[in-house]
């Protein structure tokens, strides 16, 4: 159970406060409701490039990191298809500095042409390091456009193509900022040994005078139902063949979400899971194999991803995966097996409460989904999942004409 209080400033900034007396560190999480799905198809990779630029100086602070480091703090950020999330931890006596820093870069940015130029290069190197210079690194660049024909999840956060990043201009960047980086598009969470009154005063003082933005009404095209199996074969310089299957699944706020998550746990969470035991240990066909969900806000993907043992053919490997799919769609899961994945969830939730930063992130994200208190309802939502639900959901997702299959062959 994570206790919290929340309030909203006049400009629309939502603020959540969580008390944890056990730590001298305060976590500050600032979530902006903007991700790669909000990008224009001709300038992808922008939300992420922008995250880099948020460290390039704001109107009263030339360099974000320096004062924070001087205060013994540390920060980072990530961008995904749905959100851009900034977070920091700081010794509690210096908390006000975090308000000064975060409010200033919400108020206005002041980065230079050079800062844009350098961060374009840094992001291009990130692109190379994460996607091009890694074995199997381009899998998501291939899978997304197969699975999504209409929805912007068809491109990765890093962007469709390096050229999109290369041609980003100062004006593009300013427009993006004005559109999304506003108090009414953000959720601020403070977790640590703090008082709500103190946070109210600080929030009002530092964020209260930032004007609201125009408000952004999201109008993202829905991905039409997939009605044909899609396949792609590629050859790459990798040591082993790999198989990827991506099925469309429900959105994060759908009532089937928790059931879908448990389907993936039954298949692939832990050493006792089905895929590991049957396909890695017993049949010896994969050196590793995983099933997982993307869990995106809009309709996401249910992914199978496995590397084949040398000598096993792609046909045999795919057939073995299909047999597991057949099992879970036609036979009810054992009572103990369902109980096990529920127990694992309970334990994972419990362990995740050790860190104030984790709690701050989860509260912000739950608030984005509709209510910070959702974090406290997770356990009962998972507990309510039934054996019939597992089978029905699996049946609905694992239709072959709902699937994009990527055959990734070693040269």
């Amino acid at each position, binding site marked *: 159970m994570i206790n919290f209080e929340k309030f909203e400033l006049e400009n629309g900034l939502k603020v959540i406060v969580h008390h944890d007396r*056990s*730590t*001298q*560190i305060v976590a500050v999480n600032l979530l902006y409701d903007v991700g790669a799905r909000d990008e224009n198809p001709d300038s992808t990779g922008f939300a992420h490039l922008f995250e880099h630029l948020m460290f390039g100086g704001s109107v*009263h602070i030339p*360099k974000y990191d*320096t004062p924070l*480091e*001087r*205060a*013994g703090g*540390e920060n980072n950020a990530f961008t995904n298809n749905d959100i851009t999330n900034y977070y920091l*931890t700081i*010794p509690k*006596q210096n908390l*006000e*500095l975090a*308000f000064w820093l975060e409010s200033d870069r919400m*108020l206005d940015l002041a980065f230079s042409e050079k800062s844009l130029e*350098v961060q*374009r*290069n*840094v992001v*291009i*190197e*990130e692109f*190379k*390091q994460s996607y*091009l*210079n890694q*074995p*199997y690194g381009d899998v998501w660049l291939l899978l997304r456009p197969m699975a999504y024909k209409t929805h912007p999840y068809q491109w990765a956060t890093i962007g469709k193509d390096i050229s999109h990043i290369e041609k980003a201009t100062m004006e593009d960047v300013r427009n993006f900022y004005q559109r999304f980086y506003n108090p009414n598009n953000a959720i601020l969470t403070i977790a640590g040994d703090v008082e709500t009154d103190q946070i109210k005063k600080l929030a009002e*003082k*530092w964020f209260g*005078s930032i004007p609201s933005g125009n408000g952004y009404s999201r109008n993202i095209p829905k991905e039409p139902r997939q009605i044909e199996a899609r396949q792609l074969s590629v050859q790459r*310089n*990798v*040591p*082993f063949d790999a198989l990827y299957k991506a099925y469309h699944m429900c959105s994060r706020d759908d009532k089937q979400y928790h059931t879908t998550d448990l389907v993936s746990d039954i298949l692939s969470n*832990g*050493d*006792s*899971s089905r895929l590991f*035991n049957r396909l890695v*240990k017993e049949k*010896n066909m994969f*050196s*590793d194999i995983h099933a997982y969900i993307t869990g995106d806000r809009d309709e996401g993907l249910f992914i199978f991803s496995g590397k084949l*043992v040398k000598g096993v053919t792609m046909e045999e490997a795919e057939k073995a995966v299909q047999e597991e799919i057949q099992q879970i769609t036609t036979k009810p899961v054992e009572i103990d097996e369902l109980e*096990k994945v529920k*127990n*694992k*969830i*309970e*334990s*994972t939730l*419990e*362990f995740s*409460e*050790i860190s104030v930063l984790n709690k701050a992130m989860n509260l912000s994200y739950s608030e984005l989904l509709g209510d910070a208190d959702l974090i406290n309802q997770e356990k009962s939502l998972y507990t309510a999942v039934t054996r019939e639900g597992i089978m029905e959901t699996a049946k609905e997702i694992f239709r072959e004409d709902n699937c994009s299959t990527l055959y990734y062959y070693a040269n």
Partner: protein
Amino acid sequence: MSNLNRNIQPDINLVDRISLVKPVFERMDNGIPVYLIDTAQQDLIKIEFMFSGGSWYETKKLIANFTNRMLKEGTPSMSSRDIADRIDYYGAHLETSSDKDMGYVSLYSLNKHLDKTLPVLAEIIQSPVFNQKELDTLKQNRKQHFLVNNEKVRYLAKRKFNELIFGKGHPYGKVFSSEDFDQISRNDLVSFHNQFYTAGNCKVIAAGKIPGNLLSLLNKYFGNFSGNVSQQPILPAIDMINPEDKKAHLVKKNAVQTAIRVGKVLFNKTHPDYVRLKVLNTILGGYFGSRLMSNIREDKGYTYGIGSAIVSLHHSGYFFITSEVGSDVAQDAIREIYHEIDHLRQEKVPQQELDLVKNYILGSFLRSNDGAFAQADNFKSLLEYGLDYTYFDHYIEIVKAINTGEILDLAQQYLDPESLRLLTVGQE
């Protein structure tokens, strides 16, 4: 609110006091030392057994690692599947890991299930069977995993670098190859386990909410655990390196980035200059605002990241800088790395910069001790060297007291470019 002056930065107060939960020392009836870190928060626990049984002690490559990995793969009363089922059913987690010096086995469990999960931990530590079929599967899969990693310039650099600084014949410099997987036999693992996974060679740290009956539970399940302190292998001479090998380049065709490593052998945390060097290292490459990041990423845009570290090992230690940079700018990046080193050797760091780094280090120290498991990890890093919490007091004092002149002296003494070795992995 209208008269808020955003040009004035809120006051900063230094971290001056760090309260750590002092470990309570106990012994099991059979003499195994147990350290309890009770933070009395969530009703859960981590129990870690640590054995002096890392790759340093093996006489054949990969044996330490495989002995450790195979613990979970079956005991006389439980198959690997039984172990996994039981642990997963109770929402627990077993973690095995090993490094150059140590082998570790940890259990994470909710306290309410400890009576079901602790016996599993006890059994896998004391009576693994090293089943041949399980071993064959593990060998095959780890070998494939290794061959995939071998496609990554960063991984190649990490391996080759150890060889370059310690020398091929040194226990810290040896590198395994794909053939070494085929050479592992069940007997190797059985005898390594017998020699090193013994009660006399083991220490335990438990952290979280410590149940009142923990010691009696440990005595119950580890009561028959015995065995003496293992024999320490003879130390090889440290300098087995061909002095010509100051530089090396590994070719990875078609790589779009080049991995760079620069560094040298130093010493471990028991050396009087170790903490001071940590400060110097932080300035150079130990945080986001470091010299290397500011120049090579934030000014030049050559890389997504660059950093440096000093690493403590039980019998040695080393310093290294690491990055992956665009292949076309590799030479420029290397020039800038040496330029930053040179700069630290020529000029005192500005007082302001040193003050920032001191605050940053103290803040990091606070952060690294946040929560039961983090405190346990920090305590472990002392225990392995026979140190106690007074080391941390000493650490904080040194960081607070160090001055710009000392930093200059350290850079001149330890970062002589002539003493550094340079490795690159990338295109020809």
